[in-house]
């Protein structure tokens, strides 16, 4: 897996104050479990995303730990409350220096 990869965020671009918004965050990643062997019989080292965090105007609103049992290209769907206009930042980090960052803006009225 490369040091970074494609990610995609799906969420509303605007919402009423106090509304619950659904956020979908998907990252391109092989999620190599570390339990598989190559055709030559060698153990393929673990290479997974370890942590996913979402900050809303620099306040952490969601965090998830990832484990080897999670499949490739993991998708996370979660909700948060639209409190103020601003930026949500999504960050995936994992083995072998993997890091991917994505952002989305929301206008709260």
């Amino acid at each position, binding site marked *: 897996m490369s040091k970074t*990869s*494609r990610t*995609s965020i*799906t969420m509303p671009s605007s919402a009423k104050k106090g509304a619950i918004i659904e956020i*979908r965050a*998907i990252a*391109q990643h*092989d*999620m190599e479990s570390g339990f598989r062997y190559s055709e030559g019989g060698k153990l393929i080292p673990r290479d997974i995303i370890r942590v996913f965090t979402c900050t809303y105007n620099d306040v952490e609103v969601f965090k998830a730990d990832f484990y080897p049992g999670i*499949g*490739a*290209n993991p*998708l996370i769907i979660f909700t948060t409350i639209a409190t103020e206009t601003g930026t949500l930042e999504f960050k995936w980090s994992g083995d072998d220096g993997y890091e991917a960052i994505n952002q989305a803006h929301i206008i709260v009225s």
Partner: protein
Amino acid sequence: MRNLLLTLVCGCSILFFGPQVEAASDNGKQALQSSYQLMSAENKAMQDDPSLNPAMFWVGDGQALWDTQVGKSNKSCASCHGDPKKSMRGVATQFPKIMNGKLQTLEGQINQCRVGAQGTSSLAYESKDLLSLTALVAYQSKGMPISVKETPQNKAELQKGRQSFYERMGQLNLSCAQCHEERAGLKLGGAPIPQGHPNAYPIYRLEWQTLGSLQRRLRNCMSGVRAQQYEYGSPEMAQLELFLAWRARGLPLESPGVRP
């Protein structure tokens, strides 16, 4: 309520996507059915919603490769073909196709362009780059019916493909047709047997945890019946792909599809 909802959902999907296409396979009577119809509601949603479909990452990678200049000629795909949204629209529905006297699959044609026009190396089957470019090209034909026809040029190849389809092979001594024509719609173990139409490739197969080509899927079946697998990129593969495309003509492409 949930049951009622499900029934409604299923009912609708049959109305919209149902087998309205005229029967085209050799056995004549069976209406064409995409294996999409056999999937769970969750898997269908995963294919239909670009924000859920993991294969869209490959389409994005494919677009990046499309615009990258490579090889001696320092040309990108875009140098000749421009915007794939325009130039590649409907292209995937015509493959495999006779190009300069040789039967080419979509993957084969991409490699032909790389070696010929771009002056660089061909890409290995199932490599990320080849899958990405194939996904990008196939995606431009999403929703368009497969339009492979029998022509004087491809007649002989089509006949060989048909032979492969009906020929028993492997230690289990089974032909493609015995499962995917005679027993399509029944079950093998717990899993439904699809009619075996190549209308969503390249597919993101959950079992593979990645994108894969039609040839990878065909090699799966061949290993399943304990047969000698056709090589990637071999003429036999192209002929079989041609027959399958012809057999599924009229069925809309779903590329890039999701399958369990």
